[in-house]
């Protein structure tokens, strides 16, 4: 028979335990019920709210189809039907990804979703968008067909003009492929995870208050504010 669980007093971490301190910090910052709540505020009542998760789903399909393409190497999709099919899934998932992400951005903008201490959520979202464009670009120049030849020889001028061409050579297939398969997906996924954790931590932004409802609210809930709104 196993020993009974230690009493709560015995669970007090020794002050010098890094592990315990990290665990306590993690649980304090993100209790499980906050990480995976099974309820949401009642104002989450619009189809517009699904575009964030649709963007994540698109990213998942991009990565899944990308893994298949990566497993078989960069030339595979040019000379097999199955390979071309997975390339097609990858391309259309990218279109869906940007489609859903931009609608999600429009929605969050018109909701002013950065309110209430949520500016970092907005900012991680914008940076994800910008880095995704770069990630997509490295994919386009990794296709090893005419499109990649043209895009690379054109884009080099813009990138060289900023000085970035000194260390980011879009004509170097090996370098671009490495960025596309590993470096940028890691960054994008990391940013998306940070973005989601911020959303869970801060909660979904409440609706903008309507003035007639603000004025009508009982005094206990911001009477000063209501009084100052009197026309």
């Amino acid at each position, binding site marked *: 028979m196993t020993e009974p669980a230690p009493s709560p007093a015995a669970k007090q971490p020794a002050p010098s335990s890094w592990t315990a301190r990290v665990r306590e910090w993690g649980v304090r910052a993100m209790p499980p019920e906050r990480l995976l709540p099974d309820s949401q505020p009642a104002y989450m009542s619009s189809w517009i709210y699904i575009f964030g998760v649709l963007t994540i789903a698109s990213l998942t399909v991009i990565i899944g189809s990308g893994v298949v393409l990566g497993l078989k190497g960069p030339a595979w999709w040019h000379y097999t039907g199955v390979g071309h*099919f997975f390339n097609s899934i990858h391309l259309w998932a990218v279109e869906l990804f940007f489609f859903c992400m931009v*609608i999600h951005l429009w929605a969050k903008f018109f909701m002013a979703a950065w309110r209430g201490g949520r500016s970092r959520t907005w900012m991680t979202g914008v940076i994800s968008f910008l880095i995704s464009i770069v990630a997509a670009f490295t994919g386009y120049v990794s296709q090893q067909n005419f499109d990649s030849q043209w895009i690379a020889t054109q884009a080099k001028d813009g990138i060289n003009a900023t000085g970035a061409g000194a260390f980011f050579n879009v004509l170097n297939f090996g370098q671009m492929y490495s960025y596309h398969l590993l470096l940028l997906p890691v960054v994008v996924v990391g940013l998306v995870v940070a973005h989601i954790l911020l959303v869970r931590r801060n909660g979904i932004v409440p609706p903008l208050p309507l003035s007639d409802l603000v004025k009508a609210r009982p005094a206990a809930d911001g009477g000063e504010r209501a009084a100052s709104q009197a026309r």
Partner: protein
Amino acid sequence: MDLAAIVNLNHPATYVHWHFFQMSVSNLVVIVLMIVVFAAAIAVPFRRHHEGDEQ
């Protein structure tokens, strides 16, 4: 070797022009779809199918 697509898009695109602005019909379709889907997502009522309506 290639599995033939049902709709073959491997032909030159049609372009719409307006002053100096030009866009392929395919890209225009994508943009119009985005606006339509955005508007629909806001306009279409959101009703829960199981219990759990607003308390």
